């Protein structure tokens, strides 16, 4: 069951100041409305995982590890590998996160990233089947939030796709109905580079890459993921506010243009 969350509001002074800034097209940290914080992406940080990447968006910090195992394919997609995305809002990332099983926020985060990867067909699942109906590669994308300062959707999505591009696939030999690792590795078949762009609405303003303070003030957010060809492959509106159709149009234009910028920063993407 989903319940209206209790959130700590910003101080009145700060929220007033933020809104005054926004009316001038400015933000408290000096950015323009369509400017991302510093995007730092480092791939391969966890050498023992099959793939990994760490992303910083300002103070937001996300680590993604990719594990590749073998297992049965889903019964309704017997000719495809399996992609599983999981997110942990670690208690070390913010005082509002408590240890425990995934809550609606971490599930939503994982599912939004999952859809970006899946709907863009970034990962060629059809080439990840080993024995149709019996044995497939299972790709685990584990999102680990290390510090939360807003815009977890984007930071996680960038870390996930960067981790996949960094990942290696343990080659297996088929013996009967089992797969034995040969010890060799090849690249994961990554065919696209989906990039999500999150836009928050505060008062009347639309602004990209919101900080946690900005998210606290935002009535709603929209996350739009586009493929290398500029097609929209995933959208998620979140938060208890609304968007006008004009705002949605503006948001998708922003998303399309910012995605190209960010895509150039994804390590390993040879567009």
């Amino acid at each position, binding site marked *: 069951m*989903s319940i*209206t969350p209790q959130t700590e509001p910003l101080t009145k002074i700060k929220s007033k100041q933020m809104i005054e800034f926004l009316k001038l097209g400015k933000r408290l940290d000096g950015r323009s409305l369509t400017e991302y914080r510093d995007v730092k992406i480092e791939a391969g940080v966890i050498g023992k995982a099959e793939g990994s990447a760490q992303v910083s968006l300002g103070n937001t910090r996300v680590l993604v590890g990719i594990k590749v195992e073998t297992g049965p394919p889903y019964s309704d997609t017997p000719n495809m590998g399996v992609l599983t995305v999981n997110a942990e809002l670690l208690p070390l990332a913010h005082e509002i996160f408590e240890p425990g099983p995934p809550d609606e*926020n971490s599930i939503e985060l994982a599912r939004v990233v999952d859809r970006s990867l899946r*709907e863009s067909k970034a990962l060629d699942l059809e080439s990840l089947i080993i024995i149709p109906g019996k044995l497939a590669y299972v790709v685990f994308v584990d999102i680990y939030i290390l510090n939360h300062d807003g815009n977890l959707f984007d930071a996680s999505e960038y870390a996930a796709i960067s981790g996949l591009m960094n990942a290696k696939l343990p080659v297996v030999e088929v013996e009967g109905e089992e797969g034995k690792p040969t010890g060799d590795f090849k690249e994961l078949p990554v065919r696209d580079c989906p990039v999500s762009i999150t836009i928050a609405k505060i008062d009347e303003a639309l602004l990209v890459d919101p900080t946690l303070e900005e998210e606290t003030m935002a009535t709603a957010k929209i996350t739009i993921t586009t493929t290398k060809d500029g097609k*929209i492959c995933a*959208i*998620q509106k*979140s938060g208890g506010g*609304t968007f006008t159709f004009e705002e*949605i149009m503006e948001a998708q234009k922003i998303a399309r243009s910012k995605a190209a910028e960010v895509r150039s920063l994804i390590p390993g993407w040879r567009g």
Partner: protein
Amino acid sequence: MEESRQKLIGENGLRIDGRKPDELRPIRMEVGLLANADGSAYIEQGKSKIIVAVYGPREVHPKHLGLSDRAIVRCRYHMAPFSTQERKSPAPSRREIELSKIIREAFEPVIFSEYYPRSMIDIFIEVLQSDGGTRCAGITAASLALADAGIPLRDLVASCAVGKVEGCLIVDLNDEEDKEGEADMPVAYIPALDTVSLLQMDGQLTEEEFVEALKMAKEACMRIYQMQKQALKQKYVEAKEAVEEQE
């Protein structure tokens, strides 16, 4: 896709169930059918069947979960084990948990929750039979149940999905169109505010398609909105007649 697959759009431009691209499935709405709930509604949209109950505003237990300046809204979207092709475990799936959240968020903007501090308003959506579009139909019915409960609303929320199958944009996808199609975009719309309170998409759409799809979604929602108002009017006519009969 395999060659042997049935075409989803026929040569006549009609869909597998004979609908035109912008045509809704047959929709039946019923208001106020559950005795205990403060408000309730039932919707059949094609073969999808959904029942919704609303309780509240009522006191929050335990009290410290309440908010001093507004009511909290609780929402559960849940599928019956027998609603799907393969039996679904009654434990909430990750999909149901996500949908409960975004459906709640679709209603927060229309509920005058500031009228009821320290209270809670519960929306329980049960999918009894699933044939695509259940989150949208659930929202449509939940609006009726909220109104039936007498919860003050800025407006009803009307909801419908738009999608793409075989290159063609269509509204109100059924299960097969959703599964086999190239895109699915559920939208919830608040006519009085002319704003969107739920928007999701998966699949692939070009910018042009997206613009057109949004337009189709708004039109579809407006048609559903008329039906919602009709269903509420019908309920009050019936209630009035029932009262008059008793007099």
